[in-house]
């Protein structure tokens, strides 16, 4: 019998294996991407001194400071931009936020919004 793709009894198995391995690779790349984001977020949170008051997981070490772990991402973005714009004179966040680009603000907000404690 001449080989062709229509009479190959292993065709189904082969395509299933291909599909399975593709799915696994896709999932792994997703996990790797999430890990990278998490790692970058942690570095930024340390670099910009967020964790000094708000803790590594966003649980503040004093009740005068807000918990930001698990807070809504868009709220955190608006809050950082508010401080960067200097809207609240005398707030100690102003000097921190003035150093942040839009991109860094997005990343920090995403990082802490996904945290829980």
């Amino acid at each position, binding site marked *: 019998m001449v080989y062709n793709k229509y009479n190959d009894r292993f065709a189904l198995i082969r395509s299933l294996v291909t599909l399975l391995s593709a799915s696994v690779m896709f999932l792994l790349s997703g996990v790797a991407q999430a890990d990278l984001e998490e790692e970058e977020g942690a570095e930024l949170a340390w670099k910009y001194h967020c964790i000094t008051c708000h803790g590594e997981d966003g649980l*503040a070490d004093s*009740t*005068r*400071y*807000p*918990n930001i*772990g*698990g*807070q*809504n*991402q*868009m*709220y955190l973005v*608006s809050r950082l931009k*508010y401080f960067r714009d200097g*809207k*609240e004179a005398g707030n100690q966040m102003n000097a921190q936020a003035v150093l942040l680009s839009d991109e860094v603000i997005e990343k920090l907000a995403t990082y802490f919004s996904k945290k829980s404690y």
Partner: protein
Amino acid sequence: MKGFKIAIVAALVGLGFGCSSEKPEGAALAVEKGCVACHGQDGKGIAIIYPNLDLQWEEYLRLQLLAYRSGKRENAIMNGIATTLTDEDIAILASHYGK
């Protein structure tokens, strides 16, 4: 006699509930002042532009409400709402939502 004891226990339990009226008062005030419209009854923001309050320190919430009322913290919605709050209202609401 047994019935009398039960009546006393029931009365004490009732008294206990009566005294710990902080929960219902906070919940009622949160409705009256419009907090629930954006922050929900349980402190979960109804949209991601609004903060969750359930994860927040009571003291931080109290300080923020005071700052909104004095105008130190600027927000078009919250400044107006905070001016309707007394110190006592602020303490009750912070306790209701915060931890």
